[in-house]
């Protein structure tokens, strides 16, 4: 009984009541084409792996096999809205999962509510979704940490390791994720490193490939630290160019999503000691070894099936699929027969489920998944042809320390931002 099922003791009990053996159809939308595919494709693979594991044991409640319908998020917000409606109204899917871009969840969230379509967003992590677009969600959930966690985790990581930082330079992709990281890094730094000041900013276009001007500008400002939320192909191009400009020898570097998007696309030439964020969610090497068997088996099975290592999207989709399975089983235990959406939703709300990356708690009020934010330092190791998080210096931050509590009023730019601004004390330094 490998896989997540081992963790759930009561899974083997016989389901109560009659279960239709109609396949359980999941509509999975993520970037399959375009530059976002580097982040999007693994999400589908995580969902597929979990579905296959569940189907090997007969499917949900041992009867309903999971069937996944793919849809390409790169078709644009307009086409995605129509596609979600098509999946629900004409393909009659039972559940919707996916979404990578933070531009799409605010669009699809309300549509899912209109369609009364049970949805677990894996990413599209903008705070805007539950802050403004769908303030009191009924049918939609989101499993990975919200965007604001990235900026805050990175800032706290910097404060813990390099408290003497004075001059900070920034390079962020010019779209909502980049802005969010910049805002939250700045507000947390204002509180924990009051003497640090921003000396240089650069806002390259998302998915650009030439960063030499941004590197030259950063070097010119002679900062102590560079903070960047570049990810995927952007980060790969950036660090290779930065190496040739000797940037890493002249300043510390802190990132929010360097190793998170495609672990195997970072080369052996990547320097050690870079604060490498994983979207404050998951890196496949942590929790390592058999300290957390779920992760060990997940990584082995994922690597066996897809010949690559899972990123945070893969872990998110995998965990989301098992969250569904757990909710269905719990609801069935209570009421028997196949649970309707409301029953599944009531089970998902407040659920505490162990995923490969650790416990995920789904807050009942805003349906947002919370798990401890992690970050760490890049380290080249013989076992892998690419850098991993240095197992000896992993930083984990309890999520409740860096997220606005339930009931905190909606704020600009995010409620977490105003919460930090108003409630966090400013650290007195000598």
């Amino acid at each position, binding site marked *: 009984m490998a896989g997540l099922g081992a963790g759930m003791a009561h899974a083997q009990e016989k389901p109560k009541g009659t279960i239709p053996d109609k396949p359980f159809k999941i509509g999975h939308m993520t970037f399959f084409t375009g530059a976002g595919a580097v982040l999007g494709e693994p999400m589908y693979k995580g969902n597929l792996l979990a579905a296959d594991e569940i189907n090997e044991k007969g499917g949900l409640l041992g009867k309903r096999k999971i069937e996944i319908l*793919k849809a390409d998020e790169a078709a644009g917000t307009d*086409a995605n809205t129509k*596609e979600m409606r*098509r999946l629900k*109204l004409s393909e009659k899917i039972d559940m919707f999962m996916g979404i990578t871009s*933070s531009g799409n969840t605010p669009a699809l969230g*309300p549509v899912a509510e209109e369609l009364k379509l049970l949805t677990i967003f894996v990413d599209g992590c903008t705070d805007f979704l539950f802050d403004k677009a769908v303030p009191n969600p009924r049918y939609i959930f989101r499993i990975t940490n919200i965007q604001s966690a990235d900026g805050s985790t990175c800032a706290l990581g910097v404060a813990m390791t390099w408290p003497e930082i004075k001059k900070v330079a920034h390079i962020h992709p*010019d*779209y909502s994720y980049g802005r969010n990281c910049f805002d939250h890094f700045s507000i947390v730094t204002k509180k924990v490193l009051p003497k640090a000041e921003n000396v240089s900013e650069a806002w390259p276009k998302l998915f650009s490939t030439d960063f030499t001007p941004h590197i030259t500008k950063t070097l010119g400002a002679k900062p102590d630290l560079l903070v960047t939320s570049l990810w995927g192909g952007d980060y790969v191009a950036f660090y290779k160019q930065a190496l040739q400009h000797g940037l890493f020898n002249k300043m510390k570097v802190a990132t929010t999503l360097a190793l998170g998007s495609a672990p195997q696309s970072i080369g052996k030439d990547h320097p050690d000691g870079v604060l490498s964020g994983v979207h404050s969610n998951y890196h496949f090497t942590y929790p390592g070894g058999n300290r957390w068997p779920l992760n060990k088996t997940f990584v082995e099975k994922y690597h066996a099936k897809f010949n690559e290592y899972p990123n945070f999207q893969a872990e998110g989709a995998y965990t989301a699929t098992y969250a569904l399975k757990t909710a269905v089983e719990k609801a069935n235990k209570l009421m028997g027969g196949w649970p309707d959406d409301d029953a599944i939703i009531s089970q998902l709300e407040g659920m505490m489920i162990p995923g490969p990356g650790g416990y995920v708690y789904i807050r009942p009020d805003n349906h947002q998944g919370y798990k401890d934010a992690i970050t760490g330092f890049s380290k080249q190791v013989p076992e892998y042809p690419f850098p991993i998080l240095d197992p000896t210096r992993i930083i984990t931050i309890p999520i409740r320390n860096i997220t606005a509590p339930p009931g905190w009023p909606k704020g600009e730019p995010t409620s977490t931002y105003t919460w930090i601004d108003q409630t966090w004390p400013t650290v007195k330094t000598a």
Partner: protein
Amino acid sequence: MSAVALRPAATRSPLWIVVWAVPIAAILAVLPWVMDPYRTIQLAYGLIFAIAGLGFNILLGYTGLLSFGHSAYFGVGAYAVAFMVKYLHVQSMELFLIGTIVASLLVTALFGYVCVRYTRIFFSILTLALSQVLWSLAFKFFWVTGGTDGLRVPTPKLLGVATAESEDKIQFLSHSYYYYVLALFVGCVAVMWLIVHSPFGKALQAIRDNETRARFVGIRIRRYRFVAFLVSGVFTAIAGALWVPLNGLTTPDALVWTFSGEIVFMSVLGGFRNFTGPIVGAVVYNYLKDFAVGFTVYWQTVMGVVLVALVLALPTGIVGTAKLLAALARRRFAP
């Protein structure tokens, strides 16, 4: 522009229009009760893009100017509605439309004044560059436009009637909102029909066929192109305004130049040398793209192949080819 020879346009007696237009309008009116909600909403998208296609085609089909930047005016419509919701807390659809018309008049006047001095490839590239300027502004000033998060547009009030909270949005979209769109669609078709068959419309076609001669019968080329540009921009913006409630969110996606490419694709698919071409093209395009996106991850290849095959084999588009076939049939079976 005149390499595509055309049958002489039959003189449009009003009776001839009634014979065609009324039954189609009747069918469109009945559909929501016959089709399932999803198909009806899909058709609503088609009708909205038909309005945009009509707007686009008064420039290409009738004035001979290919704009590769019509996403700008579509986006102006969408963002006008979004800003009215955000800053003026407007709810009524009628106010949205009025605001859109005013906003689009301003933008098209500014862009039009600049663009109509050029023709052919310079016109296309300039319109593309200007639409990208709007896209980058919508992208950059995120504290105003919401950047990639976009701006929310809740369900509007139609004719002052607020939709009851309980009423299911899908029912709303596939019935009352569909009829609202249908009414505007019929209105826009009628208005555009009038414009295109007015002396002004004839003058535009003269400019399309031979700019020098049009000048030498006393037509002020630049002024007429400017007015055609205004009409085109306003129609496309109206489509943008009607499009937003269907999505519920305005994002910079609607401003990217590849979106303009889709508007061009629709008109060519239908046949831009015919009045009804862009209408048929828009509806067919909608179903085609929805099918492609639903069918495979490589939806871009499906669309690309259809476009290349279309331009190679059926340059006059669906309507154009239908007319040629009808003419051939009539000639073969004529006594």
